[in-house]
């Protein structure tokens, strides 16, 4: 079958579902949707439609990136608005089916907005302000077209680029990518075309392509969303890259912790092979390319390209010295091209729309878009795609909707354990590869975690070092022992045992680990510590000099205290909730926390009724009045 025939069939199929006579229900069932309960909503829709006089179809789709609104449902109705509903539960499904699917009531009280775009154009919800600030290239069809149906991808322009490049010279393809200025989205921002060029020129009978889907940064999930929502784009990108460099075998190295992404990728592979878009003699061009999915086994360091190749060879995932670079001598000693999921997913669009089109978005040095996972203390969390060069302020206050509650912004951690923490004064920093690096952070994996006044930056730095220390593969001494020692010092700071000299030692050690490690895991592990030392020195000093945790997070420096003037004598909530019986009543029946027994679990603060709001955290601990610190001898005897 020629590509035009494949396209025509797919388009007919797609149009019947999206623009035809039959209503179509789309339910977001990516991992985040499922966690919010979308599978029960899917069942409820199927059950509700059964036996009704409608031919309405129900499809599972991926994720639109609107995490805080999950579960999401879109109802496409012939001749009427397509409406997106948020926080859908099985209980409201009958109302939606009776109201909008069968009737004329759009159930506006449950709606998030209407849905516009689709069919190749980026899908958006005009009623949501955030879409004005986003430019969706990679997420264009996510949460709208079904990742379970290859026809949806083909009908909206998919695999056209592959059919086009199979008639082109590899050098011409490299030139398009070069002119587009595409930089690798794995974090480092290395020019993609240069890698392709080296690999295509490298001598070797056998060459390999590896798609790096080992997204290990805790707090980043862009690759997962892409693979769960639009896996075909990644497969097509891989096929184009393979043709360009002359590889016939490809691997997708994906985290085992992403079972749904693996499942959807497997299905996507089978469907692409069945259509002759992967496998032997692709589209009668004589070009063969097959892809194997390899599950990672839970090691952060495997995301480093040489460590990943060691894992693929069945060895311990240890990074190697470079050069030789993988493009010359990689997997099994053969030239190997390693690209990130997002990088590969851009390729079909750049080929299709041209390098100039790609350069219309973003900055001169960093063209295109950036994908971020917004999490932390924000009103709107989720996945966003913005032009490179958008400021942090727009990201946090525009799209993210600002800080949750009446809290004050404190810092934003970008790039996960390898990134840095930036303060309010740097919110006008544009997010692109070079500006962020200058500020001490990196785009890295793209995790953006926003912290408010209730978060302790020293504790956060400790969290990241703890992560890097656990994940250090052990090859380089500086990383293996240095991160361990850094953690030790941070532990002392957060428990009030450190001295001022320790702060200098910490900084020196951080610099040493940076320069003494082979791979990026070690080289970048000190970044969270270095940036917090640079921008939040006062917070470190409060811990060390005053034994005070300004955010009242560090347990050893914080005490739970019940304000007697607010406590209600008839109420026993905190006493019942305390797991260690640390709370007792004084002679007036007001509650007191026995500081010697308290484990600082925070249960009393959570259960204290809002009308009293009597439990507070105090730091330093000596703020607790001396007469309300422990249970007096006599009281305990009376009890």
């Amino acid at each position, binding site marked *: 079958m020629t590509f035009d025939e494949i396209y025509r069939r797919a388009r007919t199929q797609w149009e019947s579902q999206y623009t035809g006579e039959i209503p179509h229900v789309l339910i977001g069932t990516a991992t985040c949707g499922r966690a919010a309960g979308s599978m029960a909503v899917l069942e409820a829709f199927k059950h509700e439609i059964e036996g009704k006089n409608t031919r309405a179809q129900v499809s599972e789709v991926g994720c639109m990136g609107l995490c*805080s609104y999950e579960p999401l449902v879109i109802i496409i109705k012939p001749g009427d608005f397509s409406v997106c509903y948020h926080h859908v539960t099985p209980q409201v499904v009958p109302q939606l089916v009776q109201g909008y699917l069968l009737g004329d009531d759009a159930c506006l009280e449950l709606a998030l907005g209407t849905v516009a775009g689709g069919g190749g154009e980026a899908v958006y919800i005009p009623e949501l302000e955030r879409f004005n600030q986003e430019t969706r290239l990679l997420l264009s069809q996510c949460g709208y077209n079904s990742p379970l149906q290859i026809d949806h991808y083909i009908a909206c322009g998919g695999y056209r680029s592959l059919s086009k490049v199979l008639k082109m010279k590899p050098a011409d393809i490299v030139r398009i990518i070069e002119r587009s200025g595409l930089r690798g989205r794995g974090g480092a921002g290395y020019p993609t075309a240069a890698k392709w060029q080296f690999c295509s020129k490298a001598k070797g009978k056998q060459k390999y392509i590896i798609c790096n889907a080992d997204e290990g940064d805790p707090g980043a999930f862009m690759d997962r969303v892409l693979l769960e929502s639009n896996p075909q784009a990644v497969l097509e990108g891989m096929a184009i890259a393979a043709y360009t460099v002359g590889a016939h075998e490809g691997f997708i190295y994906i985290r085992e912790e992403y079972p749904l992404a693996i499942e959807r990728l497997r299905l996507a592979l089978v469907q692409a092979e069945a259509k002759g878009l992967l496998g032997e003699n692709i589209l009668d061009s004589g070009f063969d390319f097959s892809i194997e999915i390899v599950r990672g*086994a839970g090691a952060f360091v495997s995301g480093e390209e040489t460590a990943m190749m060691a894992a693929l060879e069945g060895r311990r995932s240890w990074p190697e010295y470079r050069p030789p670079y993988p493009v010359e001598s990689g997997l099994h000693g053969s030239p190997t091209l390693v690209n990130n999921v997002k990088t590969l997913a851009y390729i079909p669009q750049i080929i299709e729309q041209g390098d100039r089109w790609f350069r219309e978005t973003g900055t001169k040095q960093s063209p295109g878009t950036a994908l971020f996972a917004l999490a932390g203390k924000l009103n709107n969390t989720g996945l966003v795609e913005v032009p490179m060069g958008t400021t942090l302020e727009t990201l946090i206050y525009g799209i993210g909707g600002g800080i949750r509650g009446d809290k004050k912004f404190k810092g934003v951690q970008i790039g996960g354990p390898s990134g840095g923490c930036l303060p309010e004064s740097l919110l006008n920093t544009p997010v692109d590869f070079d500006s962020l690096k200058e500020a001490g952070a990196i785009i890295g994996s793209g995790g953006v975690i926003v912290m408010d006044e209730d978060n302790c930056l020293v504790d956060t730095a400790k969290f990241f070092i703890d992560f890097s220390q656990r994940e250090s593969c052990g090859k380089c001494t500086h990383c293996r022992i240095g991160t361990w020692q850094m953690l030790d010092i941070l532990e002392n700071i957060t428990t009030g045992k450190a001295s001022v000299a320790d702060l200098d030692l910490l900084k020196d050690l951080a610099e040493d680990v940076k320069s003494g490690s082979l791979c990026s895991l070690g080289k970048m592990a000190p970044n969270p510590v270095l940036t917090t030392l640079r921008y939040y020195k006062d917070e470190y000093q409060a811990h060390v000099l005053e034994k005070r945790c300004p955010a009242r997070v560090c347990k050893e420096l914080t005490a739970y205290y019940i304000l007697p003037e607010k406590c209600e004598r008839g109420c026993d909530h905190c006493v019942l909730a305390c797991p260690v019986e640390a709370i007792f009543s004084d002679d007036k029946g007001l509650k007191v926390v026995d500081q010697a027994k308290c484990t600082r679990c925070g249960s009393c603060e959570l259960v204290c009724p809002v009308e009293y709001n009597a439990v507070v955290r105090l730091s330093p601990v000596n703020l607790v009045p001396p007469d309300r610190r422990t249970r007096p001898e006599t009281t305990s005897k009376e009890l």
Partner: protein
Amino acid sequence: MTLRGAQPGGNLPGETLSRILIEERRHTRHLVDILQDIQAAEGYLSRDALLKVSEFLDVPASAVWGVATFYNQFRFSPLGRHPVRVCMGTACHLAGGRLVLEAMSRELEIEIDSTGEDEEFSLERVACIGCCALAPVLTVGADVYPRMTPPKVEEILVTIKPAGASKNKEKRK
């Protein structure tokens, strides 16, 4: 070879093992894949299974052990019937995941990263499970519990296993 820390075990039927150790996988590059399949079938990697893999691939048991212990995914003792995993990703940490983990350990009376003596529950800390918008999150088996707090820990344990849960509460009474 003792493979210190690996439990003997032998729950894995020979036919299951021979379905995993097929001829086209007789190459060290399939080692991780083989171990993953064995763990999926057996629930953990037993000493017996590891030795069979070493024999099958014709590599020293120490090499198999070295690879198996390198990766976080592999376990060498079985999980509980209700495996509890508390997410310790960044978003969950900032939202108080540590307190949830400690509450779970206290309520179940088992150490973090271990299985209870009755093998009813096991408790693990895991890196990000990608539900950052719902932080802090924990999972019991396949069920995800969003926006956890220490008091909520007690509530969900009651629904999972009414008889054995909340040992602390009874003691307090």
